[in-house]
């Protein structure tokens, strides 16, 4: 996993995420999975009463998609683009 990240960083990938906040249940597994500390629980709840997550440090996102892969509800859409030198 670390090697993959190094490759990303060396190849300069930039990522971004979109969270479906109404689908999110605040389980926080994405927060733990993210190697870049991009995600945190927001200080708000959705219509179902669940606290949801948001990107608080999206600058650091490399689009590895760990968050989207571990999310049990498929809430996160992950984007990744190679930074042109």
């Amino acid at each position, binding site marked *: 996993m670390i090697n993959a990240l190094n490759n990303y960083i060396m190849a300069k990938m930039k990522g971004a995420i979109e969270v479906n906040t109404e689908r999110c249940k605040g389980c926080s597994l994405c927060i733990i999975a993210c190697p870049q500390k991009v995600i945190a629980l927001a200080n708000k709840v959705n219509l179902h009463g669940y606290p949801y997550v948001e990107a608080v440090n999206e600058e650091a996102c490399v689009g590895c998609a760990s968050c989207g892969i571990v999310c*049990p509800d498929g809430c996160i859409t*992950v984007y990744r683009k190679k930074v042109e030198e």
Partner: protein
Amino acid sequence: MDRNQIVQPENIVCKKPTLMNDNNMHYCPGCSHGVVHKLVAEVIEEMGMADKAVGVSPVGCAVFAYNYIDIDWQEAAHGRAPALATGIKRTWPDRLVFTYQGDGDLACIGTCETIHALNRGENIVIIFVNNAIYGMTGGQMAPTTLIGQKTSTCPYGRDPEIHGYPLKMADIAAQLEGTCYVTRQSVESVASILKAKKALRKAFEASMAGKGSSLVEFVSTCNSGWKLTPAKANEWMKENMFPFYPKGDLKDTTDK
């Protein structure tokens, strides 16, 4: 780089599977069911079998699986899913037929149907989500509950003197002639999820190639039943479930 340059449809590397609809899933936050559902949806889509798949849902937390994955489904009585799957696959041999069951459904009331469908080598895949507890009914002991594990019907911990021993269904399945692929996987980390998806794909393909029956066990968490946070439940699973239910392929004759 501007965020708008990144957030473009051609840059998507991960999203909710297409076969998974927009219904919010009723599972508890952090439940393994959600991840396994995603894998099932992704693999069926990637195999191009969306219009030929028929799933059989259990009685248990996943009773409403049919509300989330956009294929045809049948709801089975508790434990009987492998019998329904047999009836469907025998009369529709070109369909992708699978069951999706929990530990109570598959290893308790349904033990007979599980063993015999596997033993007959029905060309189906049995998906087994094993979290060592009865989630839907409020956290009672399951046939796969570990010695010493506390549940509402063994509040002092499972005691072999009173409750007998946990069942290792994958080991039983691997002994049966009719099975071609028996494997244990998990879905708590990116690495395990990617491995699990490959295993599921292998099983589905084996069933379509007429190689026999497959059992794909997902060693899973139940943070509500275990009374732990999703993250702590993953830790507990790694420390206690993985040693007793070791991951990996127990049988693979799919290339014969």
